[in-house]
C-alpha cells in the first residue's frame, strides 16, 4: 500500500497534489460542517485525521472495514468529467449519526426505517455535495452530480462494484478518514474520491496556478 504524499509520479507533483487535496478537503469539510450544523441546530465540525492516496484496489485495506456491515453513500458526476465519491461508515457509526439526526433534526428518539433511508441520503447529499462543490470551485468548472444512492451491506462487497470498473479508469483513490464531532461525541467515517485522469490533470493544472 502506498501512503500519503504518493499521489503523482513526480515528487514535486505529489506535493502539489497533496496540497490541493488538503485544500479541497478543507473547503469541502467547511461547507459540509456548516450545512450539517444548520440542519441539526448544533455545531458540527468535520476533520480529516488521515489522508491517503492509494491504488483503488487498496481502499478496503486502508479502511479495514472488510466484512463489517457498512453504510455506503455514493454520488457521481453527470457528464464531461469523471469523479466518483463515496461516504462510508461502519454501521454502528452510521447509527450514531442517525441518532443525532433523529434528535436534533426531527425531534425524535429514533427514526423509522423510511426516515432512516431519507436521512442517510440527506447526509450524503450534504457531505458529498459540499466536497464536489469544493472540487468544482477549484477547477472553475460546473460539475453536476447525481442524486445520492446508498446501500447497507458488507463493506468489501459494496466496494467491489466500484473497484471493478474504477481500477482501470482511476489510477488512484483518495481516502479522507473523516471525523464528525459534536460537543464531545465523535463519529468516524471515510470519504473516498476516485478522479478520472482528465479531472486529476485539471486539478494539478489549477493547483500549480493556485500555489504561485
Amino acid at each position, binding site marked *: 500500500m502506498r501512503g500519503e504524499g504518493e499521489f503523482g509520479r513526480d515528487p514535486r507533483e505529489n506535493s502539489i497534489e497533496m496540497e490541493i487535496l488538503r485544500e479541497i478537503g478543507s473547503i469541502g469539510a467547511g461547507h459540509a460542517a456548516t450545512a450539517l450544523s444548520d440542519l441539526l441546530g448544533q455545531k458540527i465540525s468535520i476533520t480529516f485525521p488521515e489522508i491517503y492516496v492509494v491504488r483503488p484496489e487498496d481502499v478496503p485495506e486502508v479502511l479495514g472495514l472488510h466484512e463489517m456491515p457498512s453504510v455506503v453513500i455514493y454520488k457521481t458526476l453527470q457528464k464531461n468529467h469523471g469523479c466518483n465519491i463515496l461516504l462510508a461508515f461502519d454501521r454502528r457509526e452510521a447509527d450514531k449519526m442517525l441518532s443525532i439526526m433523529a434528535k436534533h433534526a426531527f425531534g425524535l428518539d429514533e427514526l423509522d426505517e423510511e426516515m432512516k433511508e431519507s436521512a442517510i441520503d440527506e447526509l450524503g447529499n450534504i457531505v458529498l455535495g459540499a466536497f464536489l462543490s469544493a472540487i468544482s470551485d477549484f477547477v472553475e468548472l460546473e460539475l453536476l452530480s447525481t442524486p445520492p444512492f446508498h446501500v447497507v451491506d*458488507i463493506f468489501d*462487497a459494496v466496494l467491489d462494484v466500484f473497484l471493478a470498473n474504477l481500477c482501470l479508469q482511476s489510477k488512484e483513490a483518495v481516502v479522507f478518514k473523516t471525523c464528525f464531532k459534536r460537543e464531545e461525541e465523535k463519529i468516524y467515517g471515510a470519504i473516498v474520491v476516485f478522479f478520472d485522469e482528465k479531472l486529476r490533470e485539471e486539478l494539478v493544472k489549477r493547483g500549480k496556478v493556485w500555489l504561485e
Partner: protein
Amino acid sequence: MCENKKKMVRIGMAEMLVAGNPTVITTTVGSCIALCMYDPINRIGGMVHIVLPRKADYSRKEKFDTLIRYADKAVPALLSKLISRGAKKEFIRAKMAGGANMFPMFTHPILNIGRNNAEVVKKKLAELGVPLVAEDIGGNHGRIVEFDAGSGIMRVNTISKGEKEL
C-alpha cells in the same frame, strides 16, 4: 463456519489461490464472482476472485492489470493451476457465488456487471468441460465466501439472507 483448526487464507480482487487440505480460502464479493474448483479425489481446490467479464482490448497494457481479473481468462487459469498442482481434469468440479447487483435502483452499466460476470464464467466452464455443481448467484446483496479446498464445501454468508452451504 469452517473448522477452527483449518488455515484461513483471504484473497482479494483479481487474486487466485490453489491449496490442499486443510485450507479454507475466503473472499468477499458483490458483483464479482468467487469461482471455486476442486478435485475431491485428490483433495485439492482453489478459488479465483473474478472482477469483470472480459477486457475490451487485451493488447492494451495497464500498470496494475492482471489477466485473472477477467472471467474469460480466469476460468482456464484456475483450471490449469489446479492440474499443475496434481488435480485430475476428469474429477474437477466447480462452484461459484457472487454476481450481485448491489445498486438495483441505479441503472448505469458501471454498477450492474454481476450478471455478465456470471454468464461468462458459465460459458467458459462449459467450453472447458468443467461441471458447475453449485451456485449462489445474483440478488442485491454481498457475500462472504469460504471455500474448503480439501472437501470442496463452500459456505456463503450474507447480512440479509443468512448463511448457506453449497
